[in-house]
């Protein structure tokens, strides 16, 4: 019953509906697209094809190496989504563990973990990511790791706050009175009640992760063998597409990032409205 209610509020919510629609569209492009178009960034086009505006042969024109921009974007959608989602998974696992542990244990454990969280919160994340990415080298896995490990602090804070309120509930005390272990209480009582919040937060963090990936790739930290939208933007910038007014080169990847991030943000807000009763529309 509860799950249906969840879905219903989500579908009835305008922001949620639009966000979900865009998200599903990108998922379809990312899963089916690369199978159909078969894009290899290593294969350059003919000299006549360099920086051609959109035409029938190349629907979104070509880049400075004569490659099809549409194909690059379809291939890039998969990279951007995978990096965004996997990095978010890392952030969520760290953030949730730290948050629950810190809130539940309290005392010195809480103190230490929260100061650590504070450090990650106030660290300028962009320079940190750049340094880490440069140190580790440009591979898709390193980028996932770097984004994941810098993005968990906010989640940890939110989860800790909720855990603090959950652990004072009477059903937690009842569980303790029958001799339940801390692990049992965390897994059966705290986590299920914190989960909706984590879920809503996950979606918002995904938007940030995708944006971070784009930023890193745009700054040239991306994996060139697996170009994401950010990488495409990077090359567009390098080759002077902006001053050449080659709008077909830089506009589509930019818009794709915008749409995807927007869809996650919309879904996140919609979910926030569901799990946060204070924001629920009456």
């Amino acid at each position, binding site marked *: 019953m509860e799950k249906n209610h969840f879905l219903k509020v989500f579908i009835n919510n305008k922001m949620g509906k639009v966000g979900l629609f865009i998200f599903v569209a990108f998922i379809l492009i990312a899963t089916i697209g690369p199978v159909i178009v078969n894009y290899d960034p290593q294969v350059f086009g003919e000299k006549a094809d360099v920086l051609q505006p959109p035409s029938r042969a190349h629907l979104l024109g070509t880049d400075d190496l004569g490659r099809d921009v549409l194909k690059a974007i379809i291939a890039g959608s998969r990279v951007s989504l995978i990096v965004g989602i996997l990095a978010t998974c890392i952030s969520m696992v760290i953030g949730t563990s730290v948050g629950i542990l810190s809130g539940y244990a309290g005392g010195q454990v809480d103190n230490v973990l929260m100061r650590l969280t504070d450090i990650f919160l106030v660290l300028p994340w962009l320079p940190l990511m750049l340094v880490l990415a440069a140190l580790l080298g440009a591979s898709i896995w390193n980028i996932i790791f770097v984004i994941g490990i810098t993005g968990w602090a906010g989640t940890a804070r939110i989860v800790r706050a909720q855990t603090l309120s959950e652990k004072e509930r009477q*059903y937690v005390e*009842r569980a303790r009175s029958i*001799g339940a272990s801390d692990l049992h209480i965390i897994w*059966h009582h705290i986590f299920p009640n914190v989960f909706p919040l984590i879920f809503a937060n996950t979606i918002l963090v995904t938007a940030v992760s995708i944006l971070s990936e784009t930023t890193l790739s745009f700054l040239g930290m991306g994996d060139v063998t697996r170009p994401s939208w950010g990488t495409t933007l990077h090359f567009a910038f390098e080759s002077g597409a902006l001053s050449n007014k080659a709008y077909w080169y830089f506009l589509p990847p930019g818009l794709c990032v915008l749409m995807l991030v927007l869809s996650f943000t919309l879904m996140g807000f919609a979910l926030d409205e569901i799990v946060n009763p204070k924001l629920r529309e009456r």
Partner: protein
Amino acid sequence: MEPLIQLKNIRVKFPVKRGFASMIAGQEKKVVHAVNGINLEIGKSEIMALVGESGSGKTTLGKVITVLHPKDAVAGEIVFLGESLWDEKGKLKSGYHQEVCMIFQDPYQSLNPKHKIEKIVSEPLVVNKISKSKAVLRVRVIQALEDAGLVPAVDFLDRYPHELSGGQRQRVVVASALVMSPKLIVADEPVSMLDVSIRSEILKLLLKLRDEKGISCLFITHDISLAWAISDKIGVMYLGTMLEYGDTESVIQNPQNPYTRALIDIMPKMRVRKNEKRMLLKGETPNPIELPEGCVFHPRCPLAMACCKATKPPSRDVGNGHINVCHLLE
């Protein structure tokens, strides 16, 4: 007869968190004296009521029995069925959580909204590793639900707490206590959140459990008339101290302590005679951080004498184990 559980000189102290400023100023660490040296015995198949106003430490004492306090906060000895609750290494007697269960005040708060009734009631069995077989668990859950008066029990297994009424929820809480077949139930104001019409059902249920299964009960309440209705023995608590203790009839009909008299005098009556004098208390319970010297009740006692302020009153048996802690009778 050997009592089921004995509390000997139980003291509970909670440290008060100091602010940064007072820490720097080097102020002394303050302590809340929640329970101050209580002796208590609960017999087999006996309902004992703890009565007292808010802040008297009755819930704290209940939680001492269910071992819910941090260990360093509690001092004193607990003997359960002739054995000390903790061994020399400070380890809790194994299986104790199966013998003693707690029922909480608010049935709307004490059930996890995410769990179905079956999971809630079977939780003590799972936690104490009684059985892993779902069939075995289900049989015991159904039995417990029926004992708690939820029939037909099968209809309740797949429901969520929010689908039940307050009375039904409290029965679920009782069922999840019964599923372990405990010897003692600590009931912390089990009916104060329920409608008056449902209260008597839950009270009858506790009486039935005592009569049929021999389950003892520590019934914590602020309402002395409720204690009168249900209990075999009454303990009257004030500021963490037991002021009067004895058989229910003896305490209610022949109250010795001024505080007990005051509690009885505020019970609503059908007819109040015009010239009847009621003993009414004024003010509030003092701060448990700084306990009054002498008798803890003296600042509010209408009959307080000079010696009440100076020395602690002795406890005296006025007959049949009816104990009164007061200077008045000297």
